[in-house]
């Protein structure tokens, strides 16, 4: 120390100054490089862009003009009096004219073309190109769902430079940093003014920050207002200005700035903020909405429009006045906007473009093939199977259903839910919802809430029995108290839901009415191992050990896994993996990976068809019958209710001809939800299916099966209209005993003739 003082004393004053300056410069360089690295990291990150499934238009498709224009509006097409350029459409009676925008799909480039689409009776009649050529198929560009950032669990809706509205740019500069285009990161007069204010008050109160400084601040997420911090910020701002042009900085700012908070979720960037506050794309915002977002820059929490609407309104109107004074907007528009309400949406929004649960699935699928880094930075374009219409319906029904079942205030509501919808033949995941707050990233119950499936297991018990060849749905079985000795030596005596036993019943009734005792007795006769085998080939994780309690669904699965099992039932016993990602291409449109449609037969289709007939009966007079009042009369659906012990989990899994849907309702803390599968999950499932454009379940004809009428209770052969006669499928040639009083004389003659004939041809 003494030595140093001596050296300093001896050194000329000028060299000391030079030394200090050098030290300062080195410090600046270090700080500057740090911020530039940070900026580079983010700037060159082109996150994966994720797209929904495109709408395919063709003659015969069930779609009317308003359905088409709703989709076009979502894609950002403009309605116009005359269609003069791509991105416009015009509506006339039973006819829509549109000019598509060119879009590079995973398989080919669809060029921009003008089409006229004619409708008739709720269907597309014809699609004609402008040159008069008939077009068989028109694939619209897909909706963009958002981007995937791999690192830091941030969710953002990135706005590309050319998608930033000019008004936003001008307004931002006007309100936050008028000298932005001229300064080099610092606005000296603003700093002096702020310094004066701060000096007077003795603490830092006023910022005087340029947009560049604000950007720096948000990179380092440090709210401390110390002089040292300010000094660093200033250096960093200058460093960024020296290195990058204004446009790059502004682009970063628009995507980076902090604009709100929801729980632990920080809302960064104008793209996500537009979504968060208004449920819109940034480009769709009206002036009063843009002004509110700009108002929030100053203090997202203080001016939170949901918590402090009067503050937010005052600040927004101040912004609008400023914009009018600076001639960025004309007075008339400003006045009109000042008179508008804030217009922010409620928290739980439906029909949002942002689907965090589905994006989560996409991210997980991508992670099996791509590194985090490439997902986040090399500009992949990801095409998914999400169908916006189905997703919207599912959100609507889950949110409405939970509100109905749990009318408590949103913050107090304990009931949660998850939904998955798939296409049976392809395994395409069309929609997924991970919780009641459909637009917020968080615990994804559809994928991660593993819960006991209860009676959802039963169909697989019956499938094992049907596949064994020893049973049909007409077989009669004993529903009676049963004692099962477990490995532990304990005795297990399952009860029925009603606490009553029903005696001799048909397999059909036992399945439809979900009798526990009959099911356990059937499962033990067939062997629990047979059930485990089915679960294994169907792809259930585990596989579970062959304990008798498995027969009644003492096995935990996530809704997604349940959907996978039921998808195989709906798909005639063919297993196809459930997938969200259809194809991934690079920035130039070159395909990198595509998910091939692969099937594997894991069950006898005839046995599956027999079983599914039983699942149809569940909906007719079994535990799912309450859905009949909600579903269209002619829509045949199949499904099964599930309720776990003490009403903790309420399940419904089922399918029509085109859709498999699984709904789970329960509580995160695993306390009883107090709902059966029918009272809870089915009350969401049924209106969802009713609102979808879907066709009824119908098994393909098989010559190895025949349809017969049996009595629902006894399983004896009956005839149509006699007592409680129900039609089922049985292996061709199955001989069934007749129900007294319900036999058909013609049937008997037919049988006799057939017997004679078979004897002759044998």
């Amino acid at each position, binding site marked *: 120390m003494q030595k140093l003082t001596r050296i300093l004393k001896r050194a000329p004053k000028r060299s000391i100054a030079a030394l200090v300056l050098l030290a300062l410069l080195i410090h600046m360089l270090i700080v500057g490089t740090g911020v530039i690295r940070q900026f580079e990291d983010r700037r060159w990150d082109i996150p994966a862009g994720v797209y929904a499934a495109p709408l395919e238009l063709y003659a015969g498709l069930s779609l009317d003009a308003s359905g088409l224009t709703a989709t076009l509006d979502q894609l950002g097409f403009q309605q116009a009096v005359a269609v003069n350029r791509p991105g416009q459409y015009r509506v006339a009676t039973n006819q829509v004219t549109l000019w598509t925008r060119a879009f590079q799909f995973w398989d080919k480039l669809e060029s921009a073309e003008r089409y006229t689409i004619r409708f008739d009776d709720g269907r597309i009649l014809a699609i004609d190109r402008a040159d008069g050529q008939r077009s068989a198929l028109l694939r619209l560009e897909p909706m963009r769902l958002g981007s995937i950032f791999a690192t830091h669990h941030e969710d953002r809706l990135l706005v590309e430079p050319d998608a930033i509205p000019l008004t936003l740019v001008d307004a931002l500069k006007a309100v936050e940093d008028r000298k932005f285009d001229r300064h080099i990161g610092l606005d000296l007069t603003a700093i002096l003014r702020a310094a004066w204010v701060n000096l007077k008050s003795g603490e830092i109160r006023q910022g005087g920050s340029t947009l560049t400084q604000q950007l720096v601040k948000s990179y380092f997420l440090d709210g401390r207002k110390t002089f040292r911090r300010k000094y660093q910020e200033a250096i960093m701002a200058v460093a960024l200005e020296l290195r990058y042009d204004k446009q790059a900085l502004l682009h970063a700012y628009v995507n980076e700035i902090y604009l709100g908070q929801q729980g632990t979720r920080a809302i960064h960037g104008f793209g996500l903020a537009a979504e968060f506050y208004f449920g819109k794309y940034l480009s769709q915002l009206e002036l009063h909405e843009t002004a509110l977002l700009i108002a929030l820059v100053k203090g997202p929490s203080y001016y939170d429009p949901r918590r402090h609407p009067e503050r937010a309104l005052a600040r927004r109107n101040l912004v609008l006045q400023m914009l009018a004074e600076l001639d960025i907007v004309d007075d008339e528009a400003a006045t009109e906007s000042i008179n508008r309400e804030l217009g922010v949406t409620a928290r739980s929004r439906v029909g949002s473009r942002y689907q965090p649960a589905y994006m989560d699935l996409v991210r997980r699928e991508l992670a099996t093939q791509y590194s985090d880094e490439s997902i986040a930075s090399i500009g992949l374009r990801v095409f998914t199977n999400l169908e916006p219409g189905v997703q919207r319906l599912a959100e609507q029904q889950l949110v409405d259903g939970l509100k109905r079942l749990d009318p408590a205030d949103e913050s107090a509501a304990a009931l949660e839910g998850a939904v998955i919808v798939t*296409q049976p033949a392809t395994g395409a995941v069309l929609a997924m919802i991970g919780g009641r707050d459909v637009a917020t990233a968080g615990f994804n119950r559809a994928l991660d809430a593993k819960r006991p499936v209860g009676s959802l297991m039963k169909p697989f018990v019956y499938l094992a029995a049907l596949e064994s060849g020893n049973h049909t749905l007409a077989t009669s079985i004993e529903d009676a108290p049963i004692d099962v000795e477990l490995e532990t030596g304990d005795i297990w005596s399952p009860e029925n839901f009603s606490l009553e036993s029903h005696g001799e019943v048909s397999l059909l009734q036992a399945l439809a009415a979900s009798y526990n005792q009959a099911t356990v007795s059937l499962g033990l006769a067939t062997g629990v191992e047979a059930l485990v085998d089915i679960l294994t080939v169907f792809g259930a994780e585990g596989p579970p050990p062959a304990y008798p309690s498995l027969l009644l669904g003492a096995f935990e699965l996530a809704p997604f896994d349940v959907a996978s099992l039921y998808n195989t039932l709906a798909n005639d016993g063919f297993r196809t993996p459930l997938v969200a990602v259809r194809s991934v291409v690079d920035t130039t449109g070159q395909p990198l990976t595509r998910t091939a449609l692969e099937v594997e037969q894991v069950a006898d289709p005839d046995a599956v068809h027999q079983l599914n007939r039983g699942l149809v009966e569940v909906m007719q007079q079994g535990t799912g019958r309450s859905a009949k009042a909600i579903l269209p009369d002619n829509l045949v659906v199949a499904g099964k209710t599930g309720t776990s012990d003490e009403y903790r989990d309420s399940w419904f899994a089922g399918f029509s001809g085109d859709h498999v849907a699984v709904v789970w309702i329960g509580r995160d803390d695993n306390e009883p939800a107090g709902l059966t599968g029918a009272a809870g999950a089915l009350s969401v499932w049924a209106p969802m299916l009713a609102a979808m454009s879907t066709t009824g379940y119908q098994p393909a004809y098989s010559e190895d099966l025949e349809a017969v009428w049996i009595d629902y209770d006894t399983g004896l052969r009956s005839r149509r209209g006699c007592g409680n006669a129900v039609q089922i499928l049985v292996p061709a040639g199955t001989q069934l005993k007749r129900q007294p009083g319900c036999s058909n004389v013609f049937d008997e003659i*037919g049988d006799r003739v057939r017997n004679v004939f078979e004897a002759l041809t044998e």
Partner: protein
Amino acid sequence: MQHRRLVLLLPLLGLTACASVPLDETAGEIGEPPAEVAESRAQTGTAEAIRELVESSRTSRASGDYSQALANIERAIRIEPRNPYLWLELGETHLSRGNTQQAAATARKAMSVAGADRVAKMAAEGLLERAMGP
């Protein structure tokens, strides 16, 4: 063997026809379909769209661009998943690129949706035989 017997029996079984399994009316046609099937398809109108996709798929397959061939046929299957002829096309593509396992699995899938369409059924049996090899 067994279906020949059933064909013979059909008129007689007509007596008990109230119990007939509903046929899958939507089973479609590509290539050389029975005339009546083609007609019913034309009514629903999707035939043209499907035909276009199948033709592109075949062109791609012929030129060895299997990825494109699969993309086209899968697009068609998404529109009409219960059309056995589309699964047959998919299976043929798998077979062309040497994926006999998927070709066989797809042939079985075609069979399961073929329903009463014997042309489709026989084609599926043929594909399955070729996929399983000698």
